[in-house]
């Protein structure tokens, strides 16, 4: 806040002492040309889409359709729950992988090797068809049912995405834990802190700065990957859009509708990610980067002061 005002003030008043340099800036003609070409291409593409045989009017008609809103809710629910499984599983796997016990670290290695090495679409289909291996699920007196009744589309989707995500999150968490300077652990141990306290109070908060940005990417990726679970009959946003498309006779239009909703959701998530990163950056740099709103205000003040000085 204060430093924004300072820079604005510096720009507003010309420096004292020797006269400021007034020179004619270099003209970059190449930049003008490339800008014109890029704009022309953009206009051509937009025009082509507007002239295509697509009934754009159908999109607003279904944009807030009950089925679409419900599908979106399921997409979000699936994203949140499978990321939760992924993050918790990832932390556990990362700690296992870094443990001194060769058995636990090998198991973690094997898990990551398997789930990262096979496509998530294949994993989903396998989960769905695991009834061929396990005909019944029998947890003694607690629960007993046929596999096909137990493994609902929702559970298939959740396990398929969550367990796959855990493998990726494990590698992200491991990188974060390893990025913290060893001196931090030593200092904490020298103060008499136990291993657990050192991890929780000293190492993990610092590892978060490394873990959060890629995790934000994973969340956004997960939101989009949920569209794959349409193959296991789970009616999330993409599946709903497909269904409406087939019944209403506007299949392509509904794909555009889904794409628009995905874009809106990922944009909202990106903004959230920015603020979370800003929170974990505290203490790592001397002053926090300005929020977009602060940036806009800074630009406005410099613009107005430039006008005044000119």
């Amino acid at each position, binding site marked *: 806040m204060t430093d924004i005002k300072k820079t604005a003030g510096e720009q507003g008043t010309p420096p004292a002492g020797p006269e400021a340099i007034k020179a004619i800036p270099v003209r970059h003609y190449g930049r003008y040309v490339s800008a014109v070409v890029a704009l022309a291409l953009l206009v051509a593409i937009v025009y082509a889409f507007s002239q295509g045989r697509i009934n754009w009017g159908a999109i607003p008609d279904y944009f807030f359709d009950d089925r679409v809103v419900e599908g979106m809710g399921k997409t979000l629910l699936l994203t949140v729950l499978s990321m939760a499984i992924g993050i918790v599983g990832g932390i556990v796997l990362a700690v296992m992988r870094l443990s001194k016990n060769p058995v636990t670290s090998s198991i973690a290695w094997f898990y990551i090797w398997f789930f990262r090495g096979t496509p998530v679409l294949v994993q989903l289909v396998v989960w769905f068809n695991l009834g061929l291996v396990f005909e019944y699920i029998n947890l003694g007196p607690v629960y007993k049912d046929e596999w096909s009744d137990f493994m609902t589309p929702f559970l298939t989707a959740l396990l398929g995405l969550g367990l796959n995500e855990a493998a990726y999150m494990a590698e992200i968490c491991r990188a974060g834990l390893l990025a913290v*300077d060893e001196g931090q652990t030593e*200092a904490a141990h*020298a103060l*008499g802190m136990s291993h657990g*306290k050192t991890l929780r109070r000293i190492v993990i908060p610092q590892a978060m700065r490394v873990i959060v940005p890629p995790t934000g990417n994973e969340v956004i990726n997960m939101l989009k990957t949920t569209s794959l679970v349409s193959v296991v009959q789970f009616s999330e946003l993409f599946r709903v859009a497909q269904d409406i498309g087939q019944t209403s006779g506007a299949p392509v239009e509904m794909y555009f509708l889904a794409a628009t909703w995905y874009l809106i959701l990922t944009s909202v998530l990106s903004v959230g990610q920015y603020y979370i990163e800003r929170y974990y950056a505290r203490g790592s740099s001397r002053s926090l980067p300005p929020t977009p709103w602060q940036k806009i205000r800074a630009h406005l003040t410099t613009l107005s002061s430039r006008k005044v000085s000119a």
Partner: protein
Amino acid sequence: MTDKLSKKQDTPAQDVVPMVKAQGVHKSFGHVEVLKGIDLEVKPGEVFCLIGPSGSGKSTFLRCINHLEKINGGRLYVDGELVGYRQQGDKLYELRDREVAMKRRDIGMVFQRFNLFPHMTAVENVMEAPVQVKGVNRTQARERAMQLLERVGLADRAGHYPSQLSGGQQQRVAIARALAMDPKLMLFDEPTSALDPELVGDVLDVMRDLAESGMTMVVVTHEMGFAREVGDSLVFMDGGVVVESGHPRDVLTNPQHERTQSFLSKVL
């Protein structure tokens, strides 16, 4: 803390338990033997300086005292108790992590690279161990932390993050952080080696003040002036052995050993 210290000064010198006692301490990293049998004794209330060329094993020895490094041979005692082991009969049992942590509470350590916690402000750094390890309540811990920051001359920087402090200020916060646990022994691992020459004085002043209050200190240092003025004992190490020891004034002005003479001629 203060009454403990005054008690220490009142007791007659002959039958006190040494604060640190090393008997033939050996330490190897892989095939490299870094400590080749160290024997020394640090008396309570004493400022004990370790000097020597880099690679002589002085920092490694310091880290053995609070069990950041495991020794491979010999015996090391702090305040009469074995470091890292428990002896029952003629058998040694390794201590559990929890027991090692318990013992480290009483030993403060200051590092060359400060190692402040970057995600906490100065006062939070000082409060952290009392709150988390001793279970002191936050209000009391904060009050005590402010007193300690006042003592190292940084009360006005309490709300700053380490990245907003100069090296000298960071090191003084690190000293306050170690003192917050009311240690009976303070270890300093080249506390001024990473500082701009201008900032060294402030840190040494704090250490001098601490020495005057009667704290037992083991200091690995290259500051010969500090060693001569403040030190009560001095050991010159080279190649993993103690080459020469005695009162700092004697060793620094009148070294007996050839190796000590050549080292001192280069650094003084």
